[in-house]
């Protein structure tokens, strides 16, 4: 099970030479000189400290160097130490022990370099250079050398010797290659990486002012895709993360590892609960190298490293950002006159010449009422049609009414540094975000505190601790994001008619049968959602002897989500200020309710692993790592609510509810994972690199005998540029490496925690007993069939990549091609429904993803103007190779269909509109079934592909002779919903004290299907872009078919059944961020006792080029469009002292 290496160590030096002296009254200096000439020992001492002019008598025979020196020096006065290279250092004991070294550090241009770390090699003692690049440090006699480090510069190690002044010129490091990349249970230099690992550094993360980590990752690196999921409110909007496409139907999510600690959540929460200012770097394991996290690696692994103290001098950083969020890309709906015209046309097209809209339109025509007149005289013309409730003709722009720009504030303070053996980083981050809702309370406040302290007790034991505590509160009107009719702000806003006045004449909430969005924002009660996160880690690094490092750590992660809400009835009034109804009497809204929910996740992980490095072999470099981990998670969810009773604005509490109307429920579950993992790294001449990974995982989710599975990974790289045959090209190609990897990634998500067991569920409510006072009985139901033989899903990842650096390290780039095969994907084999229940999901389906990624970076300067360009472009396609359940494609989006790409769109083959009577009769007579029997001119035509006179919603299939198969239908794939050719472009320029950067992101191909149609329900507003875009006898060349209110025509299975006019190529380019910064000149900053002061202006999501109709956000196309899109304009200040 555990791979235990045989650890090897060597003794440091060899005492071989022997000396014989018979001397009297000879100076020590002479003796030492003689030894230096007759042997290869060298002596090092300071004349002012060691008295070598003293005369001694020396009589030794066949003595080693220790023997000789102990005779001539008095151990009370002097000590000596023999080093590996036969250098003997002699020091004095009774005079000054330490001496001070000082110096100046400059860059290659001779400019002083402040903030350079100066450390006594092999210790934690050190200092940093001041603003003039000067430093001074006291060194003990044992100190051999000083190490100078500075970000972006080559690290230098200078032997102290007898020097008391050491001036150093730092040289810029070749880009990236020396950077340390975290690869899971260890690190590697970027140069020696064998897998496809993306590294995202602090400076990239800090270039945008966002408090949401996943926002910062969007578009930055190829292979990781962040999809916006704008549900319209602060509370439930969360980004989606995928790494290299979807290769499993069970959506395993990503594994996030923070400072070595795996996180329980596999979605954006794992990253968004981290203070982005705390992040030092992020590395993403995209290929087989993720196999080191075997069990949970299927969706890729994101490794986050947080900041640590860097210098002896405490560094205090204070930053503040104020962001204005401006409601933009608002849904544009028709004005009242055009809306009525379209709705009326729909009915007239159906032969309903007289409908609710007709009299209003007639009145409008008779009185020559214009839109201007409507807007001016809101409330003048009163009707009851078409909703049967009196209302006044008017026009209100509800999106403008409901949303206002809002302010978001973000403050961050961090203190970090090193003091003796303690390395500390403490930070606090506070955000206060106001929602854009103009009425009612809607905000988010979040406080994150990080305490990170590492303590090197001695050379044997180092303690690593990290503690994060988070506290987030979101308040929003009850049911804000619920999109159903009259259930909250969005539900009311989606359906609100332009005629709905905000208030009655008496200033009350108006109801025309449609809820008042303002009432739902102000008066319906609030949901308070509090999230507490408590993460703690304590680890120990033990070095029993050199080259062996044992790490033991235990971490625990609590997420407590505490929600309470009250739904309060508010009265609405009709046009004449008569009481109409309470909002809670609306059947869509339901009775007054107050409740609370508690969701608690408790996650614990323990890790024990050892690393051994064979450092002393010149040409061979071997690292071994092996370890064991145990993870366990338990969840408890509790919810309770009461209804009716005294719940109102004064008492919005559960206790005020009717005790007879109380409901509660509880969920509890847990899972556990045990894992053994190991890795062997081998490098020959640092040019041929190999890595092998073995991992063995056990999961509680599978039945006995199926719990454990092994995962393997192999990767290799060849640094071609280091070969001698490349030496001629060395000037042109600075660096060239090819890589290949293969690895197995496990998945066990997407299945229930215990469904290897047959279970009986209890729940529900049915009245039994006395007719007039029944009691509630619950019922027992059988769970789905249990699967006792199911085991891990294993994704095999193959990656081939190339990294290069050329043109004097100015151009760097990489290209990767990968194939991921999921050959035992979970799937629910389809059985005839006479089975009567859901069959269990089993292993055996096959999905394959193929993709490529490229990145190009250019960095240069033109005199004092530094600039960079970073480009990334990637694509992947996932195809379902084998899926024995053969789920039939349905019209619209299908995620996994055998033989098709994931997210394929299916629809009938569109054949234009029926334009003439003869076309109509020809078309309708050619079908015996499948088409509505009341089709008419302007309706869509579809092709009967299999020629059976039926339009059938089954996929079109051919037999081996190319003829339509027996049970073939007429559906074909008409599109693919995946995002393709994603790209990011990052440009930056700095000149003197100004810096400027902008970042574009987009996709070249993304077919989306519009679920927004011109003719929905008579009580729904219509998007502006449909106006006069539907077929009519005098508008035949338009993209959309005729309007119809008839369900059988307009239903999704006919008129709008995914014909091509619903497909849009949502290619887009968005300016994600643009920023202009100014840093105070050093001299000025110094005078203010500051290390650095930077102010900046920034804009996020402020411009885009989009192909979508209407005012849509291309990142969330055709989402139920209620809440506007926020464009963000920020001002920030960043102070370091």
């Amino acid at each position, binding site marked *: 099970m*555990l791979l235990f290496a045989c*650890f090897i160590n*060597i003794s440091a030096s*060899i005492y071989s030479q022997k000396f014989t002296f018979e001397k009297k009254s000879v100076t020590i200096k002479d003796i030492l000189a003689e030894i230096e000439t007759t042997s290869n020992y060298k002596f090092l001492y300071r004349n002012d400290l060691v008295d070598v002019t003293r005369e001694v008598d020396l009589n030794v025979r066949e003595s080693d160097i220790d023997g000789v020196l102990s005779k001539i020096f008095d151990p009370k006065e002097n000590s000596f130490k023999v080093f590996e*290279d036969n250098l003997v250092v002699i020091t004095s004991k009774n005079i000054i022990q330490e001496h001070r070294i000082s110096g100046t550090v400059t860059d290659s241009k001779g400019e002083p370099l402040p903030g350079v770390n100066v450390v006594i090699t092999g210790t934690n003692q050190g200092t940093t250079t001041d603003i003039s690049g000067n430093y001074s440090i006291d060194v003990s006699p044992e100190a051999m050398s000083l190490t100078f480090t500075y970000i972006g510069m080559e690290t230098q190690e200078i032997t102290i010797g007898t020097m008391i002044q050491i001036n150093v010129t730092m040289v810029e490091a070749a880009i990236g290659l020396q950077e340390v990349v975290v690869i899971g249970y260890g690190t590697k230099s970027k140069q020696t990486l064998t897998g496809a690992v993306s590294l995202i550094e602090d400076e990239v993360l800090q270039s945008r002012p966002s408090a949401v980590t996943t926002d910062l990752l969007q578009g930055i690196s190829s292979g990781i895709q962040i999809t916006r999921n704008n549900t319209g409110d602060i509370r439930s909007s969360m980004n989606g993360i995928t790494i290299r496409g979807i290769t499993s139907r069970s959506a395993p999510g990503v594994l996030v590892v923070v400072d070595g600690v795996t996180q329980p959540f596999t979605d954006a929460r794992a990253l968004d609960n981290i203070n982005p200012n705390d992040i030092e770097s992020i590395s993403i394991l995209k290929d087989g190298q993720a196999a080191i996290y075997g069990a949970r690696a299927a969706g890729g692994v994101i490794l986050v490293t947080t900041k640590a103290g860097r210098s002896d001098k405490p560094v205090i950083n204070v930053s503040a950002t104020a962001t204005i969020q401006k409601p933009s890309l608002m849904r544009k709906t028709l004005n009242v006159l055009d809306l009525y015209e379209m709705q009326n046309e729909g009915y007239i097209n159906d032969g309903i*010449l007289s409908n609710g809209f*007709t009299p209003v339109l007639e009145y409008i025509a008779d009185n020559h009422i214009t839109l201007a007149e409507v807007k001016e005289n809101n409330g003048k013309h009163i009707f009851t049609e078409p909703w049967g409730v009196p209302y006044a003709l008017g026009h209100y722009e509800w999106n403008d009414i409901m949303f206002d720009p809002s302010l978001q504030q973000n403050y961050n303070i961090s203190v970090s540094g090193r003091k003796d053996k303690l390395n500390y980083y403490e930070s606090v981050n506070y955000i206060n975000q106001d929602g854009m809702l103009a009425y009612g309370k809607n905000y988010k406040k979040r406080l994150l505190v990080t305490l990170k302290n590492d303590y090197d007790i001695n050379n044997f034991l180092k303690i690593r601790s990290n503690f994060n505590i988070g506290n987030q509160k979101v308040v929003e009107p009850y049911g804000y994001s619920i999109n159903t009719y009259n259930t909250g702000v969005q539900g009311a806003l989606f359906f609100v008619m332009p005629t709905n006045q905000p208030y009655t004449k008496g200033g009350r909430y108006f109801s025309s049968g449609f809820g008042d969005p303002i009432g739902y924002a102000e008066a319906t009660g609030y949901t308070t959602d509090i999230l507490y996160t408590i993460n703690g880690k304590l680890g120990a690094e033990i070095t*029993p002897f050199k080259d*062996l490092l044992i790490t033991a750590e235990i971490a625990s992660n609590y997420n407590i989500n505490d929600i309470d809400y009250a739904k309060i009835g508010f009265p609405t009034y009709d046009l004449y200020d008569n*009481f109409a109804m309470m909002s809670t*009497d609306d*059947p869509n809204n339901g009775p007054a309710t107050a409740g609370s929910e508690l969701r608690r996740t408790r996650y614990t992980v*323990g890790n*024990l692993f*050892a690393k051994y490095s064979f450092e002393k*072999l010149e040409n*061979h470099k071997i690292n071994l790592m092996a370890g064991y981990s*145990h993870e366990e998670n338990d969840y408890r969810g509790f919810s309770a609510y009461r209804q009716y009773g005294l719940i109102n604005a004064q008492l919005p509490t559960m206790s005020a509810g009717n005790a*007879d109307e109380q409901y509660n429920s509880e969920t509890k*579950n847990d899972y*556990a*994972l*045990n894992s053994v993992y190991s890795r062997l790294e081998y490098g020959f001449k640092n040019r041929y690199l190999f890595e092998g990974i073995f991992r063995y995982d*056990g999961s*509680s989710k599978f039945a006995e005998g199926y719990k454990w599975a092994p995962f393997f990974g192999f990767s290799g790289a060849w640094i071609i540029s280091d070969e001698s045959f490349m030496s001629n090209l060395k000037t042109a190609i600075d660096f060239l490496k090819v890589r290949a990897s293969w690895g197995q990634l496990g998945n066990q998500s997407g299945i229930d925690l215990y469904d290897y067991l*047959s*279970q*009986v*569920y*209890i729940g*529900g*409510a*049915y*009245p*039994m007993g*006395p*007719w*007039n006072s*029944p009691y*509630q*009985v*619950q*019922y*027992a*139901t059988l769970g789905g069939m249990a699967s006792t033989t199911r085991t891990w899903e294993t994704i095999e990842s193959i990656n081939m990549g190339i990294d290069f650096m050329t043109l004097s390290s100015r151009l760097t780039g990489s290209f990767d091609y990968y194939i991921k095969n999921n050959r035992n994907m979970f799937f629910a*084999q*389809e059985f*005839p*429904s*006479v*089975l*009567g*229940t859901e069959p269990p999901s089993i292993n055996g389906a096959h999905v394959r993803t193929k993709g490529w990624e490229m990145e190009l970076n250019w960095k240069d300067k033109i005199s004092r103007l530094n600039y960079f360009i970073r480009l990334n472009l990637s694509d992947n396609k996932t195809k379902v190779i084998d899926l024995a359940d053969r789920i*039939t494609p349905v019209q619209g989006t299908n995620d996994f269909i055998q033989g098709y790409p994931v997210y394929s769109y299916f629809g009938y083959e569109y054949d234009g509109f029926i334009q003439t009577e003869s076309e109509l009769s020809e078309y309708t007579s050619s079908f015996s079934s499948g088409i*509505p029997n*009341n089709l008419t001119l302007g309706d869509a035509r579809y092709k009967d592909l299999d020629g059976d006179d039926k339009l*059938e919603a*089954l996929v079109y299939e051919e037999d081996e002779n190319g003829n339509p198969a027996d049970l073939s239908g007429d559906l074909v794939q008409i599109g693919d919903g995946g995002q393709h050719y994603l790209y990011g472009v990052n440009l930056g320029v700095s000149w003197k004290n100004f810096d400027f950067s902008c970042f574009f992101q987009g996709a070249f191909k993304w077919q989306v299907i519009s679920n927004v149609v011109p003719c929905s329900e008579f009580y729904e507003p219509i998007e502006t872009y449909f106006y006069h875009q539907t077929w009519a006898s005098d508008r035949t060349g338009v993209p959309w078919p005729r309007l119809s209110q*008839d369900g*059988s025509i307009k239903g999704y299975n006919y008129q709008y059944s995914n014909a091509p006019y619903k497909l849009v190529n949502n290619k887009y380019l968005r300016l994600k961020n643009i920023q202009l910064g100014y840093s105070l000149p050093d001299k000025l900053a110094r005078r203010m006792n500051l290390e650095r002061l930077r102010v900046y202006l920034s804009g996020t999501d402020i411009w885009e080029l989009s192909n979508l109709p209407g005012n849509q956000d291309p990142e969330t196309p055709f989402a139920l469009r209620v809440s506007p899109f926020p464009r963000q304009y920020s001002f920030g200040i960043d102070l370091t002292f």
Partner: protein
Amino acid sequence: MEPLSIRKYISSLHSIMHRMKRICHGVFILILPILLSCEKSLDLYPKTTYSEATFFASPENFELFANQFYLILPTIGLGDDRDQYSDIVAQWSFNTVSNGSYFPTPTSSVWDDSYATIRNTTYLIQKGDEISPDLKSEVSPFIGEAKFFRAFAYFNLLRDFGGVPIIDEVLDLNDDDLLYGPRKSRDEVLNYIMEDLDDAVDKLPVESVIPENNKGRVSKGAAIAFKARVALFEGTWKKFRGIDGYNELFDEAINASEQVINSGEYEIFDRRDVLGDECYRYFFILDRIQSNVANLTKADQKEYILANRFDNNVRKQPLISVDWTPSPTKKIADMFLCTDGLPISQSPLFQGKLTVASEYENRDLRMKSIFFVPGTQCWEAQPPNESRNWDDPLAGGFILEVIFGSWTRTGYLGSKFNPQVLNSSTDLPVIRYAEILLVNAEALFERNGSITDEVLDLTINKLRERAGIAKLSNDFVTSNGLDMRTEIRRERTIELYMESQRFDDLRRWKTAEIEMPQALKGVLWTGTQYETDPQWSSVVFPLDIDGSIIIEDASQRSFEEKHYLFPLPTRQLLLNPQLEQNPGW
């Protein structure tokens, strides 16, 4: 110093091994207990569910498991009302079943849900076989319930699809014979239903002995009544298709319905004494709290044999509102007799359709009870919700007008089952005594070709009496040139309006091909208040030759031979090549 080679490493290895061993041992001793304890930690069990293996050891759990079956009871009036498939109501958008434009779909909820019920009921029956003998009698009533609901599910399949595969065991994934078996004949399915019902009748208790705390559960009477429904359905299905064996089925229907009638367990709810002419309206909205002037409650009726129960505290009845109720068509409106027992075409009492309310005069009392007469009061969704003042019915509410397009399509406003309040506790009948009387009359008539006045008095006339119309007798039929079968069927159609019977009735009588393709019509327009009153001046409808409005033209409606059965879901045909599609599809 020279760098060391690998060989030197290995040679120095043994000197280090001593140190290594100590460390390795130490690490192993540290890890081993963790490994062992953690292996155990992977054995986790559900925290909030039962393990199936132990659940059925106790008889109370049989009851708990049987409770789920009640959820499959149809919620007529709340959406799964099959009258929308028929010709007596018009939905807000044209119903594709009603107008014959539907086509095979990959899936069918009737098919899937029925087989899910069949699995669950069979499961309980199987567990009943396995339980220890001394507990058998204790679980017997719940096995009876399982059999009743299994029969219920098979009848849902039979009436829609005809013969279907019979699954009589809890299937495993490798039971290929049954999973991929062929359809059984209609008769085999029918016999299977009847056997289950006979078993259920044996095991279930009589309604009056069901203890108060178990009220609402299926009774012996319900099983017998359901048997009568099934037998009449299949008997007439056979008779009008010339298939032998119908008389035996009529005998079964007669026998079963007589058992129910003679049991004395049920009676027709006729409380016109305290509720007045609209007694029939209040009957369907009896609540557990006051819901009528006489303060009668759900406990005051003995007509429902089996009901889908609702309760304001436990399982709220959603509002059945006027604007969501399908509109009654001219066909059903004209079907109501005048109080003299004569059709409107013959009766001198008929007041004509000159005004919006005139046709309601002198008619079957049920007409005013299951329609809202235009211009009357409706309390729907108006506060105060739960305390409608039944002593002063005019307090609150609003006047119902005929508003085409928002409240009605046909001009008629449906109101049956509309409790006019939110969150009511009204139950929805699944089988009621009135149907059993109608089954008895129809079965006897179809069995014998005639029906005696005595039987008419015991059955149909009990319903006509409540409806305030003259008795039906053989003499009355003859003297007025009426047809007895037509009158029996008329009675059934009116009495069971919006109770999911009409579509099945037309199919079993094999009259659907005549009735269904007829145009769906609404109120009379020409020469009436509708035409003259400016209120409707902007309303335009196509009219038939008599001047009635046409909602859906006959040219857009069809009912072919194939429509007598629904098509099997096509996905199932693909999965199981042994399944044959119904003819014509």
